Every structure is written in structure tokens, then in C-alpha cells.
């Protein structure tokens, strides 16, 4: 089960509120501006700054 287009259209980085892009393997969402990666686990994006990985 992939993330809905409706959801991807409105998701943003919780830190800068800018766009996030879905990784090719759909395992995470990346904010290029903040250089943060938000994991997706069990089809639920974990959009928490304190749990994001620096890239």
C-alpha cells in the first residue's frame, strides 16, 4: 500500500514547511532544504523533527 497522491500533494517538512519528496523505494520523505529524511514505517510517514535523520 503506497501513500495516496492526495497526501503527497499536501505533505510538507514540519521544520521549514517546504516540500518533501518521496524516495524512489518509498521508504522515506526528504526535505532538501533542511537536509532531513523522514522515515515511512508501515505506510505511516514519521514527520517528527526529533526522529528525522540528517542527510
Amino acid at each position, binding site marked *: 500500500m503506497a*501513500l*495516496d497522491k*492526495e*497526501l503527497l*500533494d*499536501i*505533505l*510538507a*517538512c*514540519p*521544520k521549514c*514547511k517546504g*516540500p*518533501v519528496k518521496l524516495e524512489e523505494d518509498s521508504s522515506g520523505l526528504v526535505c532538501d532544504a533542511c537536509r532531513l529524511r*523522514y522515515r515511512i*514505517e*508501515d*505506510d*505511516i*510517514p*514519521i*514527520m*517528527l*523533527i526529533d526522529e528525522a535523520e540528517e542527510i
Partner: protein
Amino acid sequence: MTEDPRKTFSKSAERYLDSADHRTGADLVVISETAHAMLPGVTLDIATGAGHALRAAAPYSGYCLAVDLTAEMLKVAREHLTRAGLNQMGYVQARADRLPLSDGSVNLVTCRIACHHFSSIPDFLSEVRRVLAPRGRIVMVDSIVPSDEKAGEFLNRVEKLRDPSHVRSFTMRQWLEFFNIGKLPIASVSTFERTHSFTEWSRRVSQKEKDLKEVERSFQEAPVNLKKLFRIEQDSNGAVISYTDEKVIIIAERR
């Protein structure tokens, strides 16, 4: 010190699905009617819990988004709403005061019986205002405390004893001020009373007998005026049967 709600709700998520305090209520009718009166768009439920508010709004929404701080809670909501045949749904783990959504992307925000867990109501409302589209609305429901300071402190103390992730319940006046400062003009305000079965209410968060006894003792030893105010009912042995508090429903619109 306030406990991280993730710790509290990861252990008690399932109990919020069946909770009579959460699966029923006049406020769910208000949420449903508010969604019905608007053009179908994106409905965002903040701190969704088991998803009861979204279930009420979903028939009148284009797309529904459940946001919660706790992954376990989102999984309970997903199972509940999928079983109810609702599929136009997304689930996202996020903080209420750090919403991962673009500006103006939401038509209706619901937030039901959750704000007392938030660390900053102004930050939460600022984020709500940011994500709402012009003419978008919020329906906020939460417990309120009496304006009498001692009565308010008593209820907040008991709530925190029962649930360490409880931050604070506010008075009606404080809520009106929060919306005023947050530049979200209020369209309507109403209140309703909720009688909580002590057994269900107290065991929803903690199952430890020692903690539960302490919460019960607080009600048993409350001054007479507070027993009357919160309608604390006890059986012939003194065991607490129920108490009653007040909830506020505020509907506000982003101009």
C-alpha cells in the same frame, strides 16, 4: 513533570477505541454537521486517537488525514476506520504544533478531547491557522475547568495523577482568549456535560492498582463543595462511581 504522550498512549491505544467517553457524544454530531455544511475538501484530525472524529466527518469530506504523535494510536485508528469502510484516509505521525502540511491545504480541522495534552495551545492554533484555507474551519472540543481557581486546580491535579501526560485543562475564558490571540474568529461556542464512569475513566490510562487508589482517594477526600460541583458519586462503601465535568465545543473560521 509531564510524561511524553507517546509513552502513555503506546500502552493504552486500544482502550480509546471502545471508550464510551470517546466513541459517543454530542460533539461528534457537531463535527458531522460542520463537515456537512462545508464543501468537501481535506479534513485534518489532529491527535486523532482512535479516529472517532474522522469517522463522523468522513462522509462529508473529500480526503481525511489523521495525525497523531503516537504510531500505535494511528494503527488503531486505521484499523477502526478501514473496518468502517472508510478508505479516503491518510495517517501521519506528527506533533500538533509542528504540522507537516503546506499552507492553506486543509478545509476542516477537528481536534477532539486532546488539547489538554499539548505543550503550547498558541503554537497549536498558529499551526491550525497556517494550514487552513481561507473560510476553512476548526472544531475544537476539550475538557474545561471552572473559573474558580481552586476547583480548576483540583481537577487538573486529579487528571495529572491519573494521566502523567495531562498538561492542563483551561477555563472557558482562557479558551476564548487563545482563539482571539490566534486570530481565528469564533463562529460558535457551546458546552456539554460528560459523566465519567470512574472505573472506565481511571483504568483507561493506568492499570496499576496503587495509582488508581490514589486517584480515587483524591475524589473521596475532596471538599464537599467540589464533590457537589463535579457531582462525585460514591457507593455505600465510599467507592467512587462517577464524576462529571464540562466540555467546550468551539467552531472558528479562518478569514
